[in-house]
């Protein structure tokens, strides 16, 4: 789960990382009031969960409260990479001398949280990593010892900070690490960490991604989930305990197990089709879950055929079959459906589905080929001009 910049800055503040004294506004009037409170020039920043806000015109300076109101009015409602801006952060403009990068991420290969710092802040760190990797310094943190002060000092020296900044930089590193661990983050980033005109350090932008698996112990953080973090379908899937990722293809997939679901997508492509989604109904899927999954798949207008691939283990094929029947009664859309049931109670499952008009398959390869053919046939039928319908439309 991704957090918005203003939420991240609040968290940073709680962990002793110095942040600007701004706040969030949802209307131009609120932005004006904040600008009045802050005084002087302010920066108005759109709060959307995508990168490249500045380039898209979503970050602007305002020299007066009146200008802040006007600028906020322009940014609120703006579309940035498909997301509508609903909130702006109003921060005091900063006198920036240098921009540093400081980030932490869980390194899977090393099985440690790794802290990274670079003197080249303020730009995309992946660009720095690609062009000038020698300018990024990193070190692994022992899970039992935490980030020690000497390690932070090492980083400060590596990125060329003067000695009077060693101690404040170390405090920021340790604060960020405490926030990372305290919130069960998978990524925490300050970019830029600015050296201001007076030599002090301040986190001018912040990013955090939280581990979804740990949200059960962070009700406060879980409540911060932004609706832009997921599509309506992804949200419904999550609430139903399903893993769903929308893709651009025409063949909807319902599979039990993540690996098998990915392999099903792959084999659809292998036979010349394109998967419309990833969907794992999970182990031991009950009928209602299956029904919810089918509703989600069919809510995508691109879907021209659906492939069910169920390898029964803990999941029982008869239970899945019942779910499919329930869903078919609720859903109005008619698209061809190909079903492959193997494993636990597959015979009962197939018997249940015998009454429904579904194509069946024995192997995954056969199922994929049939689904690809069915999707192609549906698409072709939709594209063929039907004279009767045309005439009706004209008159």
């Amino acid at each position, binding site marked *: 789960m991704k957090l918005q910049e203003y939420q991240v800055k609040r968290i940073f503040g709680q962990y002793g990382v110095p942040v600007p004294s701004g706040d969030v506004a949802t209307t131009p009037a609120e932005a004006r009031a904040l600008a009045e409170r802050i005084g002087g020039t302010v920066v108005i920043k759109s709060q959307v969960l995508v990168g490249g806000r500045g380039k898209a015109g979503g970050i602007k300076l305002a020299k007066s409260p009146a200008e802040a109101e006007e600028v906020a009015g322009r940014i609120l409602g703006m579309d940035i990479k498909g997301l509508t801006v609903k909130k702006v952060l109003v921060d005091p403009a900063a006198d920036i001398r240098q921009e540093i990068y400081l980030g932490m991420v869980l390194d899977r290969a090393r099985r440690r949280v790794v802290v990274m710092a670079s003197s080249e802040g303020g730009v995309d760190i992946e660009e720095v990593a690609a062009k000038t990797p020698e300018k990024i310094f990193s070190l692994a943190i022992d*899970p039992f010892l935490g980030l020690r002060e000497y390690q932070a000092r090492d980083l400060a020296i590596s990125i060329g900070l003067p000695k009077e900044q060693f101690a404040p930089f170390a405090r920021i590193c340790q604060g960020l690490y405490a926030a990372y661990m305290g919130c069960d983050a998978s990524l925490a980033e300050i970019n830029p960490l600015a050296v201001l005109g007076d030599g002090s350090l301040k986190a001018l932008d912040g990013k955090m991604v939280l581990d979804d698996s740990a949200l059960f112990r962070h009700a406060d953080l879980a409540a911060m989930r932004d609706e832009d973090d997921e599509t309506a379908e992804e949200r419904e899937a999550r609430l139903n305990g399903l893993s769903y990722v929308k893709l651009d293809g025409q063949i909807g997939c319902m599979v039990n*197990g*993540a*690996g098998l*679901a990915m392999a099903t*997508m792959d084999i659809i492509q292998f036979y010349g089709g394109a998967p419309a989604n990833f969907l794992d109904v999970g182990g031991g899927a009950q009928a209602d879950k299956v029904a919810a999954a089918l509703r989600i798949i069919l809510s995508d207008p691109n879907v021209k055929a659906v492939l069910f691939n169920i390898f029964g283990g803990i999941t029982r094929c008869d239970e899945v079959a019942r779910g499919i029947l329930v869903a078919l009664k609720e859903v109005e859309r008619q698209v061809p459906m190909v079903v492959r049931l193997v494993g636990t109670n597959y015979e009962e499952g197939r018997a249940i589905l015998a009454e429904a008009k579904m194509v069946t398959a024995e192997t*995954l390869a056969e199922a994929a080929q049939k689904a690809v053919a069915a999707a192609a046939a549906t698409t072709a039928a939709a594209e063929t001009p039907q004279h009767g319908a045309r005439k009706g439309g004209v008159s």
Partner: protein
Amino acid sequence: MSILVNKDTRLLVQGITGREGAFHTEQMIAYGTPVVAGVTPGKGGTWGVGNVPIFETVHEAVTATGANTSIIYVPAKFAPDAILEAADAGVPLIICITEGIPALDMMKVRAYLDTTRSRLIGPNCPGLITPGEAKVGIMPGHIHTRGRVGVVSRSGTLTYEVVYALTLRGIGQSTAVGIGGDPINGTSFVDVLKLFENDPETRQVVMIGEIGGTDEEKAAEFIATKMTKPVTAFIAGQTAPPGKRMGHAGAIISGGKGTAADKIAALQAAKVRVARHPGEIAEMVAERM
């Protein structure tokens, strides 16, 4: 021979009275796995499914029954503790089925386990099976047959798919191990490949990887430099978009790293035959029999 579990396995079930734990304990016993003890705090002194004695702690259970393997079915909230308790009681092999353990918990658990003699398989895995001897997990037992192909995988049902295809062709398995779909786990591909390489019964190996991380790349390096037995591989997620978690917590392409294409290229460079889709795996293995 086989690896990790066999007829000498003496299995302890942590979370034996839960819905999943009870159901799968019955299944494991029905398969012939020697289940010697269960642990559920607060229910010590009672008897679980299959008349298995239940203890308060893992230490008690091990002392009383000589359990040498533990399987964990407790919810994610309690699973890290369950793993640590088993390790502290000196259980040499711990299998954690539980999905959804916070990554930072696993980071600490794994760092602690590295200081002990215990090996962890999983979490978020189907377990492992040596056909005809011991089923320590949630996989359907009947799709497996005894044989000489070692199987190692990050996935559950995709492994069943591949194993079943092998069985239908009359190709049996020595042991099938699910190492799990989490970003930090207890046992890697390389760990299992090493065991298969040293197992006289195993003649060839099937490795089923997926997007995310670099475990497959490390496996490729190991296969190229240390392995004599042939390996057939498949990597799931060739059509997965970057930045999206594909069900498993560990199945994500982040920062352009962990793509199926990279993994396939690394494996092919190590002279591993990589199947284009799961259906091809059994065919490729059959050609090498």
